[in-house]
């Protein structure tokens, strides 16, 4: 099954919708709650990254009985130094975003820690793409 959710940059009010939908589906499948939590953490962090940094983006989700694959593609500033962005606590979030409680860094490393497979590609000035795969019956990453 595949699903697509659009994300609007700057719209924190509606961030989290995709995570909630995905969470419900995983509960229906009877996926272990610790795995659901890892999926939701990854998806929510990645979604908020788009809201905080990009103009708009799209979440594509492919779900089967064994795996969930989530691809988040955005049109945005991109990440100049991915290695730096992958470090804990590193953030380029604006002061307004931080004031809302977002932008504390940790986003990308947190996704990486919770995903079974994580690929990030970025083109400065164009956008960023994240591919996250989590095994739904597997053990902790």
């Amino acid at each position, binding site marked *: 099954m595949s699903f697509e959710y659009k994300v609007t940059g700057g719209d924190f009010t509606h961030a989290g919708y995709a995570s*909630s939908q995905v969470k419900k589906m995983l*509960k229906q*499948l*009877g996926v272990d*709650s610790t795995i659901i*939590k890892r999926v*939701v953490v990854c998806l929510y962090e990645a979604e908020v990254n788009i809201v905080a940094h990009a103009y708009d983006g799209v979440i594509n989700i492919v779900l089967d009985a064994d795996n969930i694959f989530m691809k988040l593609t955005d049109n945005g500033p991109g990440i100049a130094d991915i290695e730096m962005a992958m470090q804990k606590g590193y953030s380029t979030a604006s002061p307004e975003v931080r004031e809302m409680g977002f932008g504390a860094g940790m986003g990308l490393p947190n996704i990486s820690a919770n995903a079974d497979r994580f690929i990030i590609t970025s083109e400065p000035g164009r956008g960023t793409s994240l591919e996250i795969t989590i095994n739904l*019956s597997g053990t902790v990453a």
Partner: protein
Amino acid sequence: MENGFFHHALTIREDICTGCSLCMRVCPTGALRIRDGKARLIEDRCVDCGECFRSCPVNAIIIEQDDFSRIFDYKYRVALVPAVLHGQFRHEVSMSEISAVLRSLGFTWVYEVEHGAEILKPAIDDLMNVRTLPRPLISSYCPAVVRLIQVRFPALIRNLATVKAPLEMAAFYCRRVLRDRGAHNAEIGVFYVTPCAAKIAAVKSPVGEESTPISGVINMDFIYNRINRTLRNKGELPLGDDHAYSVDPDTLVWSLTNGEASCVNGRTLAIDGINNVTEFLEQLENDEITGVDYLELRACDEGCAGGVLLSSNRFLVAERLRNKARNLKPGARAADNDDFPDIEAYHDYLMNKVKINDEIKPRSMYRLSGDRDEAMRMMKRSRRLMCWLPGTDCGLCGTPSCQALAEDIVRRRGDISQCVFIRESNMEKDLMDRQRSNEIMRKIWGDNNFTKNCNKKGAENESN
């Protein structure tokens, strides 16, 4: 591990139910359906919150209670009374008057449930000091919330504070005091005057516990009516009783919104109303909420002051109780007399009993099948069905939403032809005749809803 049903205190009386579907529309877990013109409960989804009871316009939903005469099966008859009972009466009605009425009904000892909270305060503090426990800890006080977490938010079970409720602590205390004075356990009957259905269900089948120190429950509306009648014929009231209210002011309001949270250290939050609680838990489960140490969650608006078995306005009850608490001097307890040794004297004994020992188990209501591949097939099918269902959530199919119907169908509990939109389309294409469509409608809503009835609520000759 997820099989077996909850005990439910709520029962639908089929002879009274008119199948109006109001309950189905308010149920926060989608546990109700309409069939044959009657509301039906899907038991493993119900969390005993009582929203259906509140919404029923014809009082067709009843809350079981023990026969009052059962108290006389015991030599020592303890009434465990929550403070919200007192909050229902005018300011000038004293707590000792109310207790006197309860004694005149046959109880030998009236004890306030909130005393039990005095033991809980240090017990919760202890839990809060355990750094390895997840944050926020979630209060396990409200049984409807605990059950909501079991069926809808199983990932949050580990956040539940594993301490018993003030009720259990008070009951253990009463039993111990009476035993210390020579009573046998079998001679002691401890009866709880309950403000809601969830507490009854919790007493009858405690979550994560095997046995309960409580012998039975008496519904608060029953006691309220008895007290009111006695107060109105005041001549009969044995006044001047030795009983004085002796709970600490801050524990007196424990059952009200923020009553518990305000006694816990750290960043605490109090949320009341089952839909507010659900919304918050949804966000918490998504990890969207961080930095909160303790959550007090109550299914009822205004906490237990909004319990479904209360007869007075919840805001007045809360306000009166807060006033009573303000007028109590902190630490000024009634002098210890024979009836009332301080619960603190039993601190060590009760602290040994305060932990919930058994595991609180998930009972996910969402899981479509125990077999992952089968669940996947069912989910796909349910989503295909959603392509056809209108998404209006009109409820005419007898389920609360299109999505609920789609899931009922894949669980073999429903049929696509229950949908009036599907039937209309099929009739348009000559795939179904009008008579068949009408039969289906009657199967859901019963024949009564198709006949003229001038006695119904709001009709020409309304009569109940």
